[in-house]
């Protein structure tokens, strides 16, 4: 006997993500989901970004990490509100699911925030699949990772709204073709805005900050 089902397997997460979207709209906060492979520099980028944005833009951060609080400790120094999700309590997951985000957002308190940034678990595969109710998705790639990454992980670069090529201060020491990697990103996602900068030297950081400020303003009017 065949039983007809026709159901999306991730429907539960999609439903939670829609609940989050409504919540974030009510709170009038712009939500950015930041993704990359481990060590591309998400936390470092956030430290520099928050230092420049605060206090004019009031930022909160949810950091996903499999088991430490290192990243949260580094971010708190900037004065931003920070909370950490350690997924090991939830089975060492490879991504943050929508239901975890809303709990943390409520715990953090969004009413006095303009921008909420979620630093997702370091992984170029799984987080792309899980909507968390964000307004925009940023993918970070560093110059030590290889030019072919956009072609190997096309879904991540498809779902991204913006890409950051980080650690360009290292270019003189590497055989990394920055133009090729940007071309590869555009093959996968033709109109993807790409910002090339160094979270160490802060070279090229301004255009990214401007992009972010405009996005926050477009949604929240703040």
């Amino acid at each position: 006997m065949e039983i007809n089902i026709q159901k999306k397997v991730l429907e539960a997460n999609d439903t939670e993500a829609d609940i989050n979207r409504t919540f974030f709209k009510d709170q009038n906060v712009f939500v950015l989901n930041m993704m990359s492979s481990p060590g591309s520099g998400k936390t470092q980028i956030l430290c520099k970004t928050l230092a420049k944005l605060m206090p004019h833009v009031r930022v909160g951060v949810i950091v996903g990490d499999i088991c430490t609080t290192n990243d949260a400790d580094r971010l708190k120094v900037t004065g931003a509100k920070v909370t950490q999700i350690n997924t090991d309590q939830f089975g060492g997951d490879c991504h943050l699911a929508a239901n975890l985000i809303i709990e943390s957002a409520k715990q953090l308190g969004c009413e006095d925030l303009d921008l909420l940034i979620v630093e997702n678990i370091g992984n170029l595969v799984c987080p792309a699949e899980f909507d968390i109710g964000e307004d925009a998705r940023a993918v970070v790639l560093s110059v030590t990772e290889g030019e072919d990454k956009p072609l190997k992980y096309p879904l991540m670069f498809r779902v991204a709204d913006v890409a950051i090529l980080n650690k360009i201060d290292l270019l003189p020491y590497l055989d990394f073709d920055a133009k090729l990697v940007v071309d590869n990103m555009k093959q996968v996602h033709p109109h993807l805005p790409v910002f090339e900068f160094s979270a160490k030297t802060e070279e090229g950081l301004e255009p990214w900050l401007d992009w972010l400020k405009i996005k926050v303003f477009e949604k929240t009017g703040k």
Partner: protein
Amino acid sequence: MHEMGIAQQLVQIAIDSIPRDIENPKVEKLNLRIGRLASVVEHSLTFCFEIITKDTPLENARLDIDVVPVTVHCKSCDNGWEVTGPVFKCPFCEDGDVEMLTGREIEITSLELADELKI
């Protein structure tokens, strides 16, 4: 890497779909549709599924996966085509705004139950 979570959802949805009045149901097959761009690795999904279905009505059930091609549409020139590699640039107008129509599905379409044992 999240195949375990997907396998758990599959089991949940399948169990919820079995009519209550069937005694000792035994699922023989689950029919799935998985897009080529969905991040699901077939053998690891099958592996996870086998582990978590031990001693359930889904034990030894087969996963029959229909792979859905990636199809796209260019909003700028209104052409549509199938994407076979990771390249989404519009070959017709070069600079088009390309949207994905299919290729990200992770869906369960139906399940097949073994005939009830007549004793």
